[in-house]
């Protein structure tokens, strides 16, 4: 039996070897290589539209961790042309690791407002997402909570659900709080929120809304596009239906904390021209509309129509705190989460 088994294993191994060499990256064709920290099902519609418009094929590796390290190790020979990621902190990581090259493009500069791109062209934001409070329709009156600061109010004791304080989105929110209020005040606030938690921080943004539906808590923190995604999902629609999205204000302003997803060109980019085409395409009306309608994010290009669902939640003002300030305070925010013992 051993012999047949070994034979079978060898056979499969060989089959795969041939299969795999077939899927390798051919260098002759028109193509562009993408390292993506965004999930494939989110970016596939965009890449498809890009291929239809330009005839350029995209090759993708998706991973949430280790992408920057991979580029660093691969060095000048790295096949990656662009990196797609969420969170300003992650964009900043890539820049600091030295794996990014600056890009100068009139198209990108025309499409993307100056506050949504690096002055030196090392990264460009493509979408904007607001961090919302989802309030139970039954148990929280409209207008009962209007700011992030109020989350620390003892009246919410045992009524708040969030994901881990270490998650990129919460870290960015905390970094923004530090920028607005200073370390000491922000830490006091985080301690207050911790005291109000209904349960140990866990799960994803969607999971928090689910918990509101089941009565485990009354307030949840989550990014705006999850609300749209849940409404579009036959199963999760019921979760989304029990909450009102609230655009909270930060630091006494009338503005809501926002984060971005973005793109950067790698230092090694072997297909530089095509990479630039992809970046420009992603900032174009066509792509920005896909971002808006399929992913429920806010397009960065002014004048691009929002998805009707997103539009129905109303307009809001985005906090004008520079994104770079949030990126810089990230490490301080993570350490604060540790000090407060937020994740329990």
């Amino acid at each position, binding site marked *: *039996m*051993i012999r047949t088994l070994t034979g*079978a*294993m*060898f056979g*499969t*191994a060989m*089959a*795969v070897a041939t*299969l*795999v060499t077939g*899927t*390798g990256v051919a260098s002759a064709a028109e193509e562009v290589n993408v390292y993506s920290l965004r*999930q*494939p*099902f989110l970016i596939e519609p965009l890449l498809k539209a890009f291929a239809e418009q330009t005839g350029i094929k995209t*090759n*993708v*590796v*998706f*991973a*949430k*961790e*280790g*992408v920057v*390290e*991979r580029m660093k*190790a*691969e*060095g000048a*020979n*790295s*096949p990656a042309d662009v990196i797609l990621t969420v969170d300003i902190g992650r964009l900043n*990581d890539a820049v*600091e690791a030295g794996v990014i090259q600056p890009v100068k493009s009139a198209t990108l500069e025309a499409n993307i407002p100056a506050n949504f791109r690096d002055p030196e062209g090392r990264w460009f934001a493509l979408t904007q997402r607001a961090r919302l409070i989802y309030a139970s329709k039954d148990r929280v009156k409209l207008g009962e909570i209007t700011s992030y600061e109020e989350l620390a109010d003892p009246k919410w004791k045992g009524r708040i659900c969030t994901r881990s304080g*270490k998650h*990129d989105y919460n870290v960015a929110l905390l970094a923004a709080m530090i920028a607005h209020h200073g370390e000491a005040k922000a830490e006091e606030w985080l301690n207050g929120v911790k005291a109000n938690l*209904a349960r*140990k921080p*866990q*799960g*994803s943004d*969607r999971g928090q809304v689910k*918990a509101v*539906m*089941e*009565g*485990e808590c009354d307030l949840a923190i989550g990014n705006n596009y999850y609300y749209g995604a849940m409404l579009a*999902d*036959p*199963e999760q629609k019921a979760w989304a239906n029990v909450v009102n999205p609230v655009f909270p204000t930060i630091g006494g302003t009338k503005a809501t904390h926002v984060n971005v997803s973005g793109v950067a060109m790698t230092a090694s980019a072997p297909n530089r021209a095509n990479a630039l085409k992809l970046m420009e395409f992603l900032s174009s009306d066509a792509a920005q509309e896909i971002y808006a309608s399929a992913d429920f994010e806010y397009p960065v290009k002014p004048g691009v129509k929002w998805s009707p669902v997103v539009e129905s939640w109303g307009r809001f003002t985005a906090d004008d705190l520079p994104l770079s300030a949030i990126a810089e305070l*990230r*490490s301080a925010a*993570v*350490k604060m989460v*540790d*000090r407060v*013992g937020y*994740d*329990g």
Partner: protein
Amino acid sequence: MTVEADAFRGTGPSLDDVAAVPGNGHRRWHVAAVAVAGLVALPVLAIAWTALFPTENIWPHLASTVLPGYVLTSLLLMAGVGLGTFVIGTGTAWLVAMCRFPGKRLFEWALLLPLAMPGYLIAYVYTDLLEFAGPLQGALREIFGWSTKRDYWFPEIRSLGGAIAMLTLVLYPYVYALARATFLEQSICVLEVSRTLGRGTWRALRDVALPLARPAIAVGVTLALMECLNDFGTVDFFAVRTLTAGVFDVWLRMGNAGGAAQIALVMLGFVVLLIWAERRSRARQRFHHTSSKLRPIEGIALRGGRAWAATAACTLPILLGFAVPVSILADYAFTSPSAEWSAAFFRHALNSLGLSASAALLAVTLATLLAYAARQGANRLVKATIRLASVGYAIPGAVLAIGVLIPFAAFDNTVDAFLRQTIGVSSGLILSGTVAALLFAYTVRFLAVSLGSVEAGFGRITPSMEMAARTLGHSPSATLRRLHLPMIRGSVLTGGLLVFVDTMKELPATLVLRPFNFDTLATFVYQYASDERLAASAPAALAIVLSGIIPVLLLARSVGSSRPGTRRGTY
């Protein structure tokens, strides 16, 4: 009856004695072993190298905040899973190997099934089922008229206890497989002698069979504990903060890869200490079998309540570790409107199967080479490199992937630079970002599994047979081919199949290292399941589990027929 008296005294001839056999040919084995083990140890060394250059000293911050909690949680998790896998694995192995009761034939192979279930999947499934918002608690609230969480008590699945339960359910088969193989390979004579000397069934287990099986059981539990340490998916999902969580915080959120590597090395220290302590407590005990009288074990017939208790004890782990999660996944896959059925499955499945088969083959081949070299009177250097080569299993997959990237890319870039200089041609990246990098990573990660299994096999062969073969003029290679391989084929197959199933489930290293446009079933599941979209990923998840069943059944078969004197095909 020719039971080796040494087995009882626990002072058999040590492995080193084999070196006394005249002849040569050891050296070549040793050189090969050091070369192979050194290569496999490269990623660990690369991580150690990274640890020398942290961007800041993270220890003061960690020590004054979360570190004590992380360490305690890690230790409790290991203690819980270690105990759980030992009790379930050894207990069920003893029942099916030595007793007769209803369903025994079925349990022999079905007890291995949870092995096909990845830890992160079982965590997703049980959370969906047992959390406050899940159907079970919903039904309870309906029945008893409770409304909020404060009205009643229900165990929190997302907790340390939950993580211990989940990991125990999917990891006990390691202990079960190795323990059962050992129980079956034990000469019935030893047990009969213990019975004639007045030991009852359970005392025979405690006093004779368990001590004899200890090396194999220790290997099984050690593997389970190393899995515990490298696990990130399950504990992260359950919001249980272990040292692994610390590694990822420091690496990804504080941007300090060096600091993260330092924590990973401390975790490795845990493992090395653990292995060392276990080995030391066994000291120089060696258990070999020399008896060729291995007629089928009759088994003690259990009756009445005892028989049903045995049936229940074997049913429970299968039910909880396999039947329940698989039914839930199947339910999602076939009834949920959001289930993603895709033609690309077939391609992903083929990738998964091919990688797993290749990794299995590679891992057992190298394990056999290393284990056999260690047997040839290896010196400290050889033994130490082999140990170093098998610690990769305890490193979180994503961190290990970085360890693989560094030497591979360095090699590629060196070759490229050399060719550019000499003949003006760029070779680009030859190995990085190819399937070769993936296979290497799997080998580094799972060598411990195959090595443990193969070493257990070698350990049961008495050196006197080897000495006889060598005295008769066989070279070490010929001795391996003609004496050992036929005798350890069961262990080799076990090791290979374990690596196969492990590779099917592997996620974090695959994510980081894979080539462009390349998905396995595990990476496909991940993109949905990581976003609370379990239903969407259910068909692919089901495919992972189902394609893991075939090797698991083969494994059951190989363990069953590993007993010399047992007819092929009977279990």
